[in-house]
Structure formats: C-alpha cells, structure tokens
C-alpha cells in the first residue's frame, strides 16, 4: 500500500510535456438487443463527450434496457416477468501534461435493485511516451430489494482496484497488461434464485445461500498489431480467479479492416471457459447439505463461444461546419453457451440428475450512430 502511495506521488509530481491526449469528441446513439435462452433485453444507450479548452473532457451516458424474461431459471422456479433498468453516468477527464486524471459517477436503477458507483483513475506517459501506466479505484454501493416483499432490503459494497501498463514495442505493435482486484462485501445473493436437492428419486427447492464476501483477481494481456495492408489485429487473453473457487480464462481475436474510403469492417471471435464455484451444485444430496449453496448457472462449469461481425459506414466527412464526420455501424454477435454441470430440468426423467445438460444460443445486435465534432 505504501509503495502504491509513493508511486502515485511520483506520478502526480512528474506531469510535463504534451503527449497524452483526451478522448475524441463524439456523440453516440446505440440501440442494443440481446435475444437468447428465453430472454429478450433491448434498449438505447447515448454517450456524449465534449472537450473544454483542450484540457478537460466531459462525458455523459444514458443507458436503458427492458428485460422480458422467460429463461430456464424463471420457467422452472418462478413466473416470467418484465422489468426495466436505467443507468446514468457522468465523468470528467483532466489533461495535465503527460497525465490524465479521471472521475466518473454512475447510478443505476431498477425496481428491485439500485447501484451507485464512483471511480477515479490516473494515467501517465513515460519513457519517451512509449509506456503508459494507469491506476484506478472504484467503489460501488448496491441496494438489493425483493419484488412483493417491501420489508426486504439488503446492501452490498464493491471496491475495485485497477492497474495497467501499455507499451509501444515496435512501430507495428502495442501491448497492454492490466490487472484488477475486486472485493465485495454484503448481500451477494440473487434473492429469487433457488437450489434443488434430492428427495427420493425426485427433487425439491430451497433458497440459495452465498458467502457475504468475495474477492477476485483478473489479469489481461492485450496486443494490437498493424498488418501490412492497413488492418488492425487485436488479441486478448484474460485469466480470472476468485475466493469462491470460480476460475476462468478467455481468448479474443478482432480484425479491423478498412475497405475503400468509407467502410470499417470488423470480424471477431471469443472463447470463454469457466470452472464452477466451490459451493455450486446442480443437485444437492439433501436439504441444507452445506453452509453455502448455489445453483446459479453463471457460477457453474461452462464454455461460451462467440463470433461477430460489424460494418461501419462513414459519411459527410468534412462537409459540415460543426461536425467532422458521421458513422452508421451495424454489429451482430452469435453466442453459444454450453453447461457441463447445469441440467435442463424442464425435461422429465425417472430419476433426478439424469436430465440432459443445458445449453443455449443468443444473438446480440447493435446499431450505432456516431458523430465526431
């Protein structure tokens, strides 16, 4: 902790030169839609960023989604429902020589869940501007409620610590390493979810019980390579583990290919591979079988593979006084989730635990309209 403090002091004292740059001034309007596994979630997101005096960049984001849920969890243990979530955030970035300091406030509301988060960040260029170091801290406060139970209200606190280094390696290669430590404390359950346990050859349900703390570490390595025919190849690998016993790794590959003057094409693939939490089971042997109980498929052993494509078209470039250019971009991603210890209990079988393993596919659609000014 002492070393971290001293490093921050060094960063604060060594702000000179003019290398770091503020984010681009742009406004984005996004329509997003997720459809799969009995869920449909869609809505808008609007992000606006404006610079003041080339030293400060202000941003504001409005995000909303509307959920129509008839997922496997819902149809087997509850009733289909619909709900809406709204998220607002405002942020500011301050450029001081080779350093950028950032602050962001986010507030999210839905009928049974509220979240507030405040984050700080600092980044600094070093070594002839070939290296960028960054640090960040965020604190989030969640309030969890339960629909139909006005007396139920629980709290959780989340703290995130980030650090990263980006390195220019050659005139064609950028590499970035980032690490994030997250700690949660409080009510971390989903108040609606149940686990099932064996009763004779059938089963019954009881509420999930989670620990009240969780700490996790994630490390990601990213590399971006400029291909000779003017295209960007981005590779990503991330390792994750936490105190609940969940461990995962994922790989991502993105190719950004411009075509003619106006088009930007993008092709991407991603694979995610996760091992289950220590207290996860699809079917516990009896009621209250252990202290902590989970049957949330996000904590199970599974893989997720996705392929995506996007096409962006730039127009009116340099033709308007107050706008540099416009872009329309459409994006599609196909996901396949395959669970290795989460069974599809919609299928009736003679003995519990013999149901087929569950899997589903999902389609994510995005339509983005952007203007740079």
């Amino acid at each position, binding site marked *: 902790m002492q*070393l971290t403090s*001293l*490093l921050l002091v*060094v960063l604060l*004292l*060594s702000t000179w030169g003019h290398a770091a740059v503020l984010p681009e001034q742009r406004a*984005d309007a*996004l329509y997003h839609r997720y459809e799969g596994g009995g869920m449909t979630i869609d809505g808008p*997101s609007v*992000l606006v960023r404006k610079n003041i005096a080339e030293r400060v960049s202000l941003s504001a*984001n409005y*995000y909303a989604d509307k959920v129509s849920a008839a997922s496997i969890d819902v149809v087997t243990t509850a009733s289909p429902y619909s709900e809406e979530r709204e*998220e607002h955030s405002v942020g500011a970035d301050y450029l001081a020589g080779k350093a950028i300091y*950032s602050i962001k406030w*986010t507030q999210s509301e839905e009928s049974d869940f509220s*979240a507030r*988060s405040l*984050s700080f*960040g600092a980044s600094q260029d*070093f*070594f*002839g501007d*070939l290296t960028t170091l960054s640090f960040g801290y*965020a604190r*989030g406060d969640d309030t969890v409620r339960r629909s139909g139970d006005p007396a139920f209200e629980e709290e959780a606190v*989340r703290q*995130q610590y*980030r650090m990263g280094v980006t390195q*220019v390696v050659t*005139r064609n290669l*950028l590499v*970035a390493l980032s*690490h994030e*430590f*997250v700690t949660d404390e409080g009510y971390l359950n989903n108040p609606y979810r149940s686990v099932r346990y064996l009763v004779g050859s059938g089963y019954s349900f009881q509420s999930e019980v989670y620990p009240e703390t969780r700490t996790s*570490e*994630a490390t*990601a390595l990213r590399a*971006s390579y*400029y291909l000779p025919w*003017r295209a*960007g190849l*981005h590779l990503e690998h*991330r390792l*994750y583990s936490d105190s609940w016993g*969940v461990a*995962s790794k994922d790989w991502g590959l993105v190719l*950004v*290919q*411009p075509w003619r003057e106006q088009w*930007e094409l993008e092709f991407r693939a991603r694979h*995610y591979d*996760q091992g289950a939490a220590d207290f996860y089971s699809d079917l516990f042997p009896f009621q209250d079988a252990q202290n902590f109980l989970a049957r949330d498929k*996000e904590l199970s052993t599974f893989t*997720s593979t996705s392929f995506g494509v996007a096409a962006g078209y730039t127009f009116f470039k340099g033709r308007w006084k107050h706008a540099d250019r416009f872009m329309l*971009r459409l*994006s599609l991603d196909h996901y396949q*989730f395959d669970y290795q210890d989460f069974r599809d209990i919609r299928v009736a079988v003679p003995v519990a635990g013999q149901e087929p393993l569950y899997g589903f596919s999902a389609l994510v659609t995005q339509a*983005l309209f*952007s203007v740079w000014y």
Partner: protein
Amino acid sequence: MKTAVLLMLCLFAAGCAPEPWLKPYERARLADPVMAMDRHPASSAYQHHVHQAREGARGAEGGSGGGCGCN
C-alpha cells in the same frame, strides 16, 4: 525491490529517460484508428455488460471500467 522501482521512477520522472527507440514520426501506424483497442466506447461498454451479466469473471476488461451497475 521497492527502492529500486522507486529510484527508477524518480530518475525517469526527472527527465533521465533513455532515448525512445521510436521517434514520433515512426508512430503513424500506431495512431491509425484501426489500432485503437476501444474504437467505439458505447458499443464496447455494452459488450462488456453482456459478458459480465452471464459469466462469473469480472475485471480487467479494458476500457474505462469503473463498475457496470449490474449483478
């Protein structure tokens, strides 16, 4: 170890950095938009949200971070 790291940082902060191996004019390709790791922030923030809501892992996603307000 800590002292060595601090000493190095202080030296570099004081302007004793080695000559960079790439001159500014040699960085044109790196500045090309195709090389940006986060080209469309509204879209990538949403994509991270899609992953966070369905996967156990969290953190080190790239981009600005700072909490997604999801559970």
